[in-house]
């Protein structure tokens, strides 16, 4: 499709772009990360007043809430909305749309090639401000920033899939005065007509960020190999999830866990006293509340093939369990048996909704 080049910081360029959309009435509202202070505290702002746009920090390396979940709240929208979001958030939302939890109609998605985000705790502590300078230079030089989350370091989907607008950050030089905006859809081209800047017919070329991709893939392999001590096994699983406090925060922030309320919190899994007595008589001890492993492994069975690796689950875990790494590791495998990439294509059916008459014979005694 086409590319607009602005001689400005990418964040200024995007604010400019959003201002244009609001001023020209091309969108009725903007959903984007908003800076609360200079230390790095953020929230998601849903904005119609152009004066509020100044506080928007579109590429802040923090994920305060998953935009995919938020989008389910505000769609379907009767008027056009511009949304600034990370590639994983967009993929997460595509997965949600497949599950009828919102729609991409009337949404203009603006994303960037993503350098990853800092752990939420660092943002909460207000210390990200000091690290950002370094962050942007690492983007230019295609380095993996040392302070970003483990899952981000291992993410190979940092180039947005299906975004209307892609702002190129990774591998771009002079990010103080170079804003490359790729318009990937017809609607993006129409809406951004008259924005100004230099326009040429160019599509995003993955070669721009190939260096980072290489590093990320290597990091992914390292991470997945190191998540589990040894070959895994029940003891390893217990070691990892043994610290779980049972808050289920991981499922609450998960873009794929769309359920009204989690099945694992339903009465289906309640046991009566007689049952615990029986368990006790056989084992001599029990940990309560029960079913921690059931919850985590069960959740993997429910959603891992759709896991987009956004990392929020790890962010919110009060016990510092590397939930995201473990889930993404398993999710990669469950998705790959179906050749499935979560969020790749809205038309690609969720693996458990369809079947082929001949498949998976290796799993069955025929």
């Amino acid at each position, binding site marked *: 499709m086409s590319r607009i080049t602005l001689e400005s910081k990418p964040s200024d360029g995007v604010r400019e772009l959003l201002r244009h959309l609001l001023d020209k009435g091309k969108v009725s509202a903007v959903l984007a990360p908003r800076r609360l202070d200079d230390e790095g505290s953020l929230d998601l702002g849903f904005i119609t007043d152009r004066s509020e746009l100044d506080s928007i920090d579109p590429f802040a390396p923090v994920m305060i809430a998953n935009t995919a979940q938020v989008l389910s709240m505000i769609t379907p929208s009767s008027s056009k909305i511009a949304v600034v979001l990370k590639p994983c958030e967009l993929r997460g939302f595509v997965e949600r749309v497949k*599950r*009828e*939890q919102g729609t991409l109609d009337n949404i203009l998605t603006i994303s960037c090639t993503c350098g990853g985000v800092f752990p939420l705790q660092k943002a909460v502590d207000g210390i990200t401000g000091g690290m950002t300078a370094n962050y942007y230079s690492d983007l230019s030089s295609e380095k993996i920033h040392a302070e970003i989350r483990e899952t981000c370091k291992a993410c190979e989907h940092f180039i947005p899939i299906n975004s209307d607008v892609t702002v190129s950050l990774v591998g771009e030089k002079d990010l103080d005065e170079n804003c490359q905006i790729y318009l990937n859809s017809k609607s993006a081209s129409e809406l951004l007509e008259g924005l100004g800047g230099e326009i040429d017919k160019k599509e995003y070329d993955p070669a721009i960020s190939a260096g980072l991709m290489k590093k990320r893939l290597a990091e992914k392999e390292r991470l997945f190999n190191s998540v589990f001590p040894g070959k895994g096994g029940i003891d390893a699983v217990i070691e990892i999830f043994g610290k779980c406090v049972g808050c289920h925060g991981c499922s609450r922030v998960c873009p794929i866990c*769309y*359920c*009204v*309320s989690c*099945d694992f919190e*339903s*009465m*289906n*899994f*309640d*046991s009566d006293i*007689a*049952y615990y007595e*029986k368990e006790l008589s*056989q084992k001599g001890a029990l940990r309560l509340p029960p079913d921690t492993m059931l919850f985590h492994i069960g959740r993997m069975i*429910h*959603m891992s093939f759709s896991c987009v690796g956004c990392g929020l689950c790890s962010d919110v875990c009060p016990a510092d369990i590397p939930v995201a790494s473990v889930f993404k590791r398993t999710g990669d495998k469950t998705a790959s048996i179906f050749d499935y990439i979560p969020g790749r294509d809205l038309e690609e*059916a*969720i693996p*458990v*909704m*369809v079947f082929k008459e001949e498949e998976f014979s290796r799993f069955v005694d025929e």
Partner: protein
Amino acid sequence: MGSKRNSVLIVGAGIAGIQAALDLAEMGVEVHLVEDTPTIGGRMPQLDKTFPTNDCSMCILSPKMSECARHPGIQIHILSNLKNVSGKPGRFKCTILERAKYVDPVKCVACGLCEDKCPVKIEDTFDVGLRTRKAISRYFLQSIPAEYTIDKDKCLYLTKGVCRICEKTCEAGAINYEDKDREVELEVGAIILAAGIDPFDPIGFGHFGYHRYPDVVTSLEFERMLSASGPMGGHVVRASNGKEPKKLAFIQCVGSRDEGIDRNYCSSACCMFAIKQSIIAKEHIKDLDSSIFYMDIRAFGKDFDKYYEKAEKQYGVKFKRSKVADIIETPEGKLRLRYTLEKGTTQYEEFDMVVLSIGLQAREANQRLSEDLDIRLNEFGFCRSERFSPLMTSREGVFVCGAMNGPKDIPESVVSASGAVANAVRFLDLERQGLPTADESIPEKNVIGQRPRIGVFVCHCGINIAGVVDVKDVAEYAGTLENVEHTEDVMYACSTDCLDTIKKRIEEHDLNRVVVAACTPRTHEPLFRETINEAGLNPYLFEMANIRDQCSWAHMDQPELATIKSKDLVEMGVAKSRGLQPLERLPIEIDPKALVIGGGLSGMTSALSLADAGHQVYLIEKEDELGGNLRNIFFNFDDKDPQVFLGDLIKKVSRHKMIEVLKGAEIEDISGYIGNYKTSLKAGSGKEGRLLDHGVVIVATGGEEHKTEEYLLGKSSRIVTQVEFERMLHEKDFPAGKLKNVVMIQCVGSREEGRMYCSRICCSKAVKNALELKKVKSKTNVYFAYRDIRTYGFSEKYYTELRDEGTVFLRYTPDSKPVVELIDEDVTDSRARVTVFDPIMDRDVVIDADLVVLATAIDAPEKNEELAKKLKVPLNADGMFLEAHVKLRPVDFATEGVFLCGLAHSPKDMDESQAQAKAAASRALTFLNRKAVLAEGTICQVMTDRCSGCSYCESICAYSAIEVDPEKLVAVVNEALCKGCGACVASCRCGALDLRGFTNQQMYSVFDSLDLVITEKVGD
């Protein structure tokens, strides 16, 4: 004159009578079931197991007996006989004589105290004299009705005026010595005779020493010995010394295939009966040596040959082709058999016990019935019926089924019974039935919100369960489980008294859930559900634990572990039952139209029966002509021309205003469910596609002649199949003017690897054609190369006739098949040299044949597979359609509303195809004659507040029974379409769906309750 009656009188309450009664009652017809003995059930209750599945005979029969007794439309007249019939079909006037019972059936509680005290011992007819009973007794322990009766010829008071002990014993005051015989007048539209058959009495067979040597027994006696509920509790011992026999012999054809005693027919069932008994006996007695002495093994039914193979190869039963001359008891108490082999050599062998496989013979009572009712009997005293009207008697409106018109096994009896019903309905005033109105007298108890109060009943099933599992221990264990208010062990949970006990316990203990640990829910769940319903509980408050089929039978050598497993299964059942909720069933409307697939003899017969009963029928035929395989049949044993019959049939079908014949039709797709099917026919070659709505489907797709090149078929015009030969005979156009030698080779493709079944009709067909050949060319030498001659039933006499004509019979075995060579390879009509090893002469016989006729097998059409998929019905290993139950549901599929008949089921003769076609029609009528049936209660439900509207369920449901409501954004179930499979429930991530009767909570509680730490004691 008056209109037709909507009632039928059935004579005889064996399995045939019962089946006919149930079919009719389902159609809303009033039935009078007239039975000579004090119970319904007939012969089946005497049997231990049934071939070829080794199903427990009583287990499969008893639900039907109970259903019969419970059905409001069936009136049972025990100790009764039909005396006189006047009037016309549609409005017969019948007189039945009900003999005095001397016990008031209303007051009798069948406690059995009277029998305990009665001083008069008499021979027990049910146990064929192997034990005694009293003058007041119950016919057998599961008899229906359960009430006792007095034998007036034996009772001391009734004969000599003294005693009256039973009267004093009976606390219920049920004894009534003043009871009188009475005549009952009934008006019925039609009469069905199902008076059964008798076993041959070998008392005159002195050379076998029956009654002289205690260890010579009849097969029926042996069956009672094998039966767990029999006089020996299933433990077979020699009467002479009380020890287990180690060596057992069966002598076949005792009273069958014997011109000398006027039994020139084959009893059809005895070969399989002996094979079954030898298998079961080997299961009972370790290292038993068992031999069967026979002339031909006639394993001609569906899957029979596989059973025969299994007996020989797997169980090591010895089959000895020979004639037994006599039996002599040795001084050591052994039985010495003298027998002659085929070769003519005489041999001797000693046995511990000999079973005489007695034949079946016409009942003496047939004679009287024939006179009273004015119906004709055949030369052997069986009720006479014709090949093209196999279920009709010589009197209009009077039909015959079961073994009364010829020896039959159980499924054939069931088929003929349903078939007779299809004939009878023509004389009835059928009316489509509405839904049964709920029985207001038993209001359903409201159990919602109540704490579970569970009753557990653990069944012994004779020794089927109790022989392995410690039933009392299991019952006691059940009593320790939470919410279990009552537990008890019972002998036969399915017997009417036990069902009454269950009802009583529900009252006594205010039970609101019932668990029965017994056989399999597949056969018995409906019975128990109905039972608790009769006690005011919703039928879904019932759960079953399968401790027989999947426990005691599968773990016979591990009684301790089997007992532990039984406890687990009971505990799991109890766990599940806690979560059971009352469910409702929705009515499903029935479209009264039928689709019949296949326009051969079977299809046309079915179509005609349905149309005559007033229902619209679509008859589809893949070819452009009706008739199927019958078009190739020109001769019949009894001179009637099959082609004339076929012509008439086609005319009737084509002209019937209720039948639409669709020729050259191909099915595109079949969708829907019972009562609401939609079938689309392919468009093409000038035809428009069609979409047919119908309520039921009958599969009558027929069979195909086996294609082969064996025996050089196709290499010379003188090597032909029996089908081709029959046409030659008909057209009197043979490939050679002179037919000096004709060789017939049997079992071409049948009974061998890949087609391990008998094609059933080839022996009779070959005999028939050979006789026809003899008529036109009397000097021709006919050679008959065979493995076993299987001219079962009344075809036997034609085999005898052919033998008497001088035909040479040469028996071959599969490892020394006949060899056929062309004499002149260069011509297309070469004569053939056939070499057959003759075991009688013990050498090869070489015949230069002018014609070789091959009896090629009957194959299942390949297209069966496609149709089976469309209909969602199964095929057996041979590609033939597989019925719901080989014994008692021979024309039904497990899928409701789909039926089968004819060669699609298995190879069979014309009369058998017709009977089955009528049976399929009758079974279909049980649905078509109702405006609606009730859907299952186990269907999906949505917990709306948990539903996220994600549409997983919608994409998964194969029936489009669940959809996300576009307004409310939550899933909604179409309860009429839901089949209750639970596929959507398991797909629901949110826990918003559940399957009634199999809820998530129930399922979790079931396997959570499983005790997982089990250790087996080893050593002591």
